[in-house]
Structures are given as C-alpha cells and as structure tokens.
C-alpha cells in the first residue's frame, strides 16, 4: 500500500502550490497515471481523503487520467498499443521496443479557490 506514501507526496506538493498562491482551498487535483507506473488509481483515490483530512485539500476532487501503454519498435518503427506485461511490437512481434507512453506518474494541474464559498444571503423560494 505505497499509495498512501504517494498521496502524502502529492498532498505535500499541492499544499505548497496552494500556499504559494494564497489559496483558501483546493477544488481539484488532476493526475496522470500510466498502467506501468506501479500505482493503483483506485487505492490512491481511497487513500487521498485520509491524508488530506483537515488540510486545504480536504474537499478536493482527485481526477486521474490513465494513459495507454504504447511502444515504438526499434526494428520496424511501428507504434503499437500494448498490455503492460506484453511490450511487443504489434507489427513485427519483436520485444526490442521502447516504451513511449504508459509509465506516467504526474501531477498535471490543480484548481485553486481564493476563499471558501461565500454565503451572501438566504435565498427565499416563494
């Protein structure tokens, strides 16, 4: 369950960014995680609220984009989509390929709000 440690690392970075921008809260955290990053998105989503409780990120929505695993053949040059445990060229079948996408583990962006949503009055439904 190293996802907890990864959540703490993300939280630490996001809080530093929020503080730097004088934000009142973080509304959204966008991550990109490839299938070969070794991080389970579901575990990360479960763990994040635990580490974020009581911080500016406590109510943040965590969005995870998953990139497809793709390889480029060093023999024939073809680019193929692959399964994480079968990194083979889809055209000529060789394993002499380079991973061009799939091991991403990136904090892409954050959405910050200056203040807590401000109550400006009681709405009366007549």
């Amino acid at each position: 369950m190293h996802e907890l440690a990864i959540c703490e690392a993300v939280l630490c970075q996001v809080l530093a960014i929020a503080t730097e921008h004088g934000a009142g809260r973080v509304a959204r955290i966008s991550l990109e995680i490839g299938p070969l990053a070794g991080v389970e998105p579901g575990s990360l989503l479960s763990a994040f609220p635990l580490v974020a409780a009581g911080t500016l990120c406590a109510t943040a929505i965590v969005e995870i984009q998953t990139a497809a695993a793709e390889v480029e053949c060093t023999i024939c040059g073809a680019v193929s989509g692959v399964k994480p445990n079968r990194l083979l060229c889809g055209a000529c079948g060789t394993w002499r390929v380079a991973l061009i996408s799939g091991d991403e583990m990136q904090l892409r962006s954050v959405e910050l709000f200056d203040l807590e949503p401000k109550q400006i009055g009681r709405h009366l439904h007549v």
Partner: protein
Amino acid sequence: MCEICGCAGDAHVHIEGNILLNQSGKQIDVLHAMLHDNDHQAEHNRAHFDAAGVLVVNLMSSPGSGKTSLLEATIHALRGRLTVAVIEGDLETENDARRIRAAGAKAVQITTGNACHLDAAMVHAALHALDLQGVDILFIENVGNLVCPAAFDLGQHRNVVLLSVTEGDDKPQKYPVMFRKADLLGITKLDLLAAVGDFAPDRAAFHLRNLANAAPILEISARSGAGMASWIAWLLTEHDARQHAHKGVHIHA
C-alpha cells in the same frame, strides 16, 4: 438569470437554501512528477555516491528469495578485491544486518515499521550512519516486496531483481512494473531447481523479454556457488564503469 429559481441577478448556486457566490477557480498547470520530492532526494543521494566513487545497487525481490544469502556469498567472493557495505531495509528486526556484519561487511539497518518500501529520504538518513570512505559497492537490500519498491528511486545506479526457483517462473508477467526496471535478473536457489521441478529458467527469460527488457539473466546458487563467477564479473564490470564515469566527470570539471 438563475436557471434554477428564475430570479434575476448574479449567478449563484443553491446549497440547502443558501445562496453562494459561484466563484470560479484558478487552474495552475504543474506537470511535475508526483514523487518529485523523492526524485530530488534520490538525485542528491546519487551525487553523493558519485562523489564517493561508490557503485550503488538496489536489490529487490519478494521476501525469501535469497537477497541476504546472495549478499553474504558476494561479500566472501569479493574479499580482498572490493569492499562492500549494505543498507538493509526490513519492517522489523536487525537480523539481516547482523548476518551481513558476521560476513565481514559494514551494515546499517533501516526498520521501516509498516512501510512496504524504502524511499530516498530513508536511504539518505541511513547514510549518516554509514561512512562511505573505502567502500566500493553499496548494496541497498530493499524490503521484500515485488510491488511497492519499484515506484521509488533511491539514488542507485543499478536495479538487481531476484527471482528464486521456488517461486513461479511467470513472476515477470505478474509483476511487470518491478521486472521491467531490472538491470539484471538473478534466478536464485539454483541448487533447488531439480527438487522444484516445474521452474523453467527459459520461461522466466521469455517473460522478462516480453517486458522489452534486455537485461542479463544469471542463474545463481549462493549455496553451491554455481553462477557466482558471472555475478561477480558483472559487479566488477559495473564498478569499473562507474570508476571511469566518475573520473570523466572530474576531467571535465
């Protein structure tokens, strides 16, 4: 005009009858590695290792595949040629560090408690308890685990992953993230191969190549000594390469 209640005025959201200002957030593009701080610390560790002229090997495997036994045999085999030191990672106990010290090498134990992996900060802290003066090769024996350690750079130069013949030969297929990162795959406990019966080193090699990994594969028995000569030769070659790379840095500096 508000689409929900039809009233005139500024946009607002309805939450439990209260009117809230519909503020828009500010998006900040970051595009940083999620483990940015760990990666930064790992680079710092690597610079420290390079300055000390030490080859650093991150040794990873599932629990019980023979990491400590291989290190004991390695320390004996390199005696008089190269000096080995070990950072030991375990959830509990100092047992492995004791075995390494008994074999004649310096060892620092990191007990991680519940942490299932080592990270660069833990290794950095251990370095304060380990004098690298005179050390040629530093092994970092990671926590026995084929999942979590793969995500954390420690500052090592090479990853060595062990797979014992008492495990399945399809481990590389099951744990692609870990095995893809191997710079060398050691198939260990070779002396048990006949007794196990259904482990085929060729199949393990096939599954490793399916991860587009060209790493050398060595079949080793720390107990019988089979394959130890190839393992030691690989370490000596890697150590020489680091020495040259390090001298190169000095010449250009």
